[in-house]
C-alpha cells in the first residue's frame, strides 16, 4: 500500500517537471522578440529593454528556468505586465469565484448524473434509457459557448428571468470573508444577497455542468450494466432480495469505483470549461482573467493560470488514483 502511494507520487515528479518546462517556455518560445510581441510594435526601445531585463530574457535559458522555479517555490509568482500587479494577490481575489462555480457545477452534475445513469441501466432500452442517453450525447456535442449563448438569450433576454452578468448585482451589499459568495451570504445571514448570488449562479452552473453531467450519466450507466450482468447479482435476486436492495447494496457499491474516478477527472473539464463559461457570463474568476490576459498579451498571467490549472489537474488525477487504490485493493496489486 505504502509502496504504491510512493511510486505513484514519484511518477508525478517528472510530469510536474515537464509541465513546468512547457509553461516556462510559453514566453521564451514566442517567435521573434517576446518583449516586442508583448508591448506591441510601437513600444519604445527603452521600454522593450526594461521588459527584457524584468523578464530576465538576457540570461541563459537554464538560469532563467532555475530562477523562475526558485521564485515560485518561495511563493513569488511575479507581477502582471499591465498594471504591475502582484500575481499571487490577483489569484487570491479571483480564485474563489472559479471554485464556487466549479464546485456547484460538479455537485449538480453528480446528484443528477448518477441517478440518471443508474435508472438508465436498470431500465435498459426503455424510453427513459434511450432518451436520456441521447440527451447525454447531445450534452457532449453542444460546445459550452453555444449552450451559454442559447441560455442567455432564452432565460436572460427573452424571458428576462435570470441575470447573466457577474456574480452579484452591484446594488446588493455583501461582506466578503471567504470569497465564496454563497457561504459569505449564509455566514452574514444576508438573505437578499444569498438569493441574488444564487440567481446569478443558475445559468453559468448549468452551462458548465452539462458536459460533466453527460459523462457521469454515461459512465454510471455502463458501469452499472457491467455489474448487473455479474453472477452475484443473479444470486442476490434468486435468493429473493428486493430489487431495490439488490441495486443499492450489491450493484451500486461495486459499480461505484469508475463513477468516482470519472467524477474526479471532471475537474480538468470544469477548469478549462471555466475559461469559456466565465468569458460568456463576465464571471470574475481566473478563467475570465485568462481570457483578458490573452487579449492583452499579459504572458505572466497566462503562464500562472496555465500552470495552476495543470497542477490542480495532475493532483486531482493523483488523488483519484490513490483513493481508488485504497477502496479497491485489486488496483494496487495489479499495477
Amino acid at each position: 500500500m505504502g509502496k504504491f502511494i510512493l511510486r505513484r507520487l514519484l511518477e508525478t515528479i517528472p510530469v510536474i517537471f515537464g509541465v513546468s518546462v512547457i509553461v516556462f517556455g510559453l514566453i521564451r518560445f514566442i517567435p521573434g522578440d517576446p518583449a516586442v510581441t508583448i508591448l506591441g510594435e510601437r513600444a519604445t526601445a527603452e521600454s522593450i529593454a526594461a521588459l527584457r531585463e524584468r523578464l530576465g530574457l538576457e540570461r541563459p535559458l537554464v538560469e532563467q528556468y532555475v530562477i523562475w522555479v526558485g521564485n515560485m517555490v518561495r511563493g513569488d509568482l511575479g507581477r502582471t505586465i499591465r498594471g504591475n500587479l502582484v500575481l499571487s494577490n490577483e489569484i487570491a481575489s479571483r480564485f474563489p469565484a472559479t471554485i464556487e462555480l466549479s464546485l456547484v457545477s460538479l455537485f449538480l452534475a453528480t446528484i443528477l448524473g448518477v441517478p440518471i445513469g443508474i435508472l438508465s441501466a436498470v431500465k435498459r432500452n426503455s424510453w427513459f434509457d434511450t432518451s436520456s442517453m441521447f440527451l447525454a450525447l447531445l450534452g457532449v456535442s453542444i460546445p459550452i459557448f453555444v449552450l451559454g449563448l442559447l441560455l442567455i438569450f432564452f432565460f436572460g433576454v427573452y424571458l428576462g428571468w435570470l441575470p447573466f452578468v457577474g456574480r452579484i448585482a452591484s446594488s446588493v451589499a455583501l461582506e466578503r470573508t471567504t470569497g465564496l459568495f454563497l457561504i459569505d451570504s449564509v455566514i452574514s445571514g444576508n438573505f437578499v444577497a444569498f438569493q441574488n448570488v444564487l440567481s446569478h449562479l443558475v445559468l453559468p452552473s448549468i452551462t458548465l455542468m452539462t458536459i460533466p453531467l453527460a459523462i457521469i450519466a454515461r459512465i454510471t450507466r455502463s458501469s452499472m450494466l457491467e455489474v448487473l450482468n455479474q453472477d452475484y447479482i443473479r444470486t442476490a435476486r434468486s435468493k429473493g432480495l428486493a430489487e431495490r436492495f439488490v441495486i443499492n447494496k450489491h450493484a451500486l457499491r461495486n459499480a461505484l469505483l469508475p463513477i468516482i474516478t470519472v467524477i474526479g477527472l471532471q475537474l480538468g473539464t470544469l477548469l478549462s470549461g471555466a475559461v469559456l463559461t466565465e468569458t460568456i457570463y463576465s464571471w470574475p474568476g481566473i478563467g475570465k482573467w485568462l481570457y483578458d490576459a490573452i487579449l492583452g498579451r499579459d504572458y505572466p498571467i497566462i503562464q500562472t493560470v496555465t500552470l495552476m490549472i495543470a497542477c490542480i489537474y495532475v493532483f486531482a488525477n493523483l488523488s483519484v488514483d490513490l483513493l481508488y487504490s485504497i477502496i479497491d485493493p485489486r488496483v494496487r496489486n495489479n499495477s
Partner: protein
Amino acid sequence: MSNVTSLSMPAQELSRPYSPSRDIRQRLWRSPSARLGGFLVFFVVLISIVVPIFDNYNAPTDRNLRARYQAPDCVIGWLNGDYTETPVLCDYPFGADKNGRSIMRRVGHGMSVSLVAGLFSVTISVVLGTVIGLTAGYLSGLTDSVIMRLMDIILAFPSLLLAISLVTVLGPGLQNGMIAVSITQIPVYARLSRSMAVTIRNTEYVIAAQSLGASDSGIIARHIFPNSLAPLIVQATLGLGTAVIETAALGFLGLGQQPPYPELGKMLADSQESLISGKWWVMLFPGVTIILIVLGFNLLGDGLRDALDPRLKGNQ
C-alpha cells in the same frame, strides 16, 4: 445471440460465406445512432464541398449596411402563411449580421472551415499518435517509458487550455489553431495504439513473423497496425467532434480564424453584442450548425464502436 439471428436469416444468407465487412455494414445499418450520425455527416460534408465550389465568397468586401441586422423574416413570413413579403428579403434567409452580411452564406462557408479544420487536426494527431504509440508499444522498455511519460505531460493539461497556451505562443490564426488542437490530441491516439500494440505483440502470428526474420517496422506496418485499426477509426470519428469544438472554441476566444473570414466560433463571439437586444438569428444559426456537425460525428462514432468492436458496447 448470433446463432439465433443467423437461424432466422433466409437460406440464401446462410449459404453465403461469412464476410466481416458485410457483418459490420449490417450492424452499422441496424444502429439508429449510426444512421442518424451518418446522415448528418453526409449532409455536412456535402454542404462543405458544394458551398465553396458554387459560391465565390469574397469576405473582405462583403458588406451591405442597408441590410444591417436584417431579421430572417422571409422564413417567418412563410411559416405564418404570409407570402406577400418582398423577394428582396429572401436574400437573407438566416438574417444578416451587423455588417449586413448574409448569415446563411457565412454559415455555409464557416461549416467547411470547421470541417477542414477538424479533418486536418485529427489527421495529424492520428498519424503522429499512431506512429508514436505503435513504436512505443512494440519496442517496449526504455523507449516506451520515455515516450509515454512525454505523452503524460501533454495529458497533464486540460486539452483546451493547452491549445490556448500553444496558440498564444504560435500566434492567433486558423492554421496555428489547428496545429495546437492536433498536438493536444496526439496522446489520445498514442495511448490507444500503444495498448493495442502491447496486446498484439505477444500473439502467435507476430512471433511467427519475428521468427521468419521480418523487420520491426515491417511487423508494425503489416501486422500490428491493421489489427489495431478498428478502435483507432472509432476514436478518430469521435475525435473529429472534439477537434471541431476546440477549433471553434479558439475562434470564439479570438485565437482562431481572424476576421473578416467566416468561422463559426468567431461568428458566435461576435453575436454576443447583438444578443442582448434580442437579435437571436446572429447567434442561433452558427450555434446550431456547430451542434449538428459535432452531434453527427459523435453519433457516427458511437455507432461505429458498436459495429466494429462489440466488446466495447455500452462502455463510456
